[in-house]
């Protein structure tokens, strides 16, 4: 029992070292606040450790993705929101050290702002978080084909938006 616990702690330390930044990025890109994002990461990692102690986790990668996604959903459910509105995100106070990541958060959110939420989330998961279509399908409990079609529609909409923006800039010049 003690040996198993020690092994779990060593394994857990390794997972924290490898995955905490990825989890933090995942949470930050949806929440936009460092403190809240770190709280969620901590919650997810401790839940993983408890699961490891209790009965073990077969697929840690899958567990972490689902867990952080659900935790972010719960966070917004508590706040009665689905995502951070762009106007609200502009007024979030940030440290100087976090300016770069907050600009990144703003950049992505501005790009995806006009898209339907499920399409925007599919793009985030695929392009930003680097998940495969299969992983996204498993996470959202939808067929892989649906994920692909959502992705295609999202890209098309985004392309139109970018082209319009280019035309507008061309006309101005």
């Amino acid at each position: 029992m003690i040996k198993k616990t020690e092994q779990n702690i060593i394994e857990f330390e390794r997972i924290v070292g490898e995955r905490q930044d990825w989890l933090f990025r995942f949470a930050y890109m949806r929440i936009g606040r460092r403190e809240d994002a770190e709280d969620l990461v901590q919650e997810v990692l401790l839940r993983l450790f408890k699961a490891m102690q209790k009965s073990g986790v077969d697929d840690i990668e899958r567990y972490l993705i689902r867990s952080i996604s659900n935790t972010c959903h719960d966070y917004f459910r508590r706040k009665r929101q689905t995502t951070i509105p762009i106007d609200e995100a502009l007024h979030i106070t940030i440290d100087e050290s976090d300016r770069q990541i907050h600009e990144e958060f703003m950049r992505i959110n501005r790009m995806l702002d006009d898209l339907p939420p499920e399409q925007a989330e599919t793009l985030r998961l695929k392009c930003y978080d680097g998940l495969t279509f299969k992983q996204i399908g498993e996470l959202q409990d939808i067929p892989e084909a649906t994920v692909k079609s959502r992705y295609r529609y999202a890209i098309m909409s985004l392309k139109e938006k970018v082209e319009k923006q280019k035309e507008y800039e061309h006309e101005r010049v």
Partner: protein
Amino acid sequence: MKEFNDIEDLEQLLKPQCEFHASDKLKDEVIAKAKAEVRPRKVRLLPWLAAACVAGIIGLFLMPPEPSVNETPVVAKVEEKVSVTKKHETVTTETVKREVQKTARKKAIKESVAKVETPTTEEPITEQVEPSREPAMLSETDIPITRPENLIDTPEDFAQIARLEKRAFIDRMREQVEIAKAELIHETLIEEN
């Protein structure tokens, strides 16, 4: 080819452009909390002991007061009453026993007298005594001594005791008369023989 390039460009635009780092203390905090989870919990007895002491003190303060000194004579009174009733009962049982003995003796005498064919006046007496005395007998069910109001002797009780005493005296006298009669008869019979 142009469209393909556009999509690729778009995907490139959507990829992370900078590094995200969680704060340094996050890792330490998480690992410390995880280690605290597996550490065996210490059983803290002191708070429980303190709570038990407080509960005991509160219990002492809230306990109802013990019976005061004024109530003690009442208890003594009750005991007295109980002893009185017991005496009462013994008197009644003794008289009953005596009655039984008397009737047995009377029967023996009657038998002997019947042999001699001498008329006697005993029968009506026994018949009268037996049924009339039965209701006067007091059993434990008649007097529930646990009730305090039943422990007080009423004037009726005293009258009943007096009546029983008188009746017992008369019976004893009658018995002696009967014995004397029987002896006389016996002597006369012997003399005649």
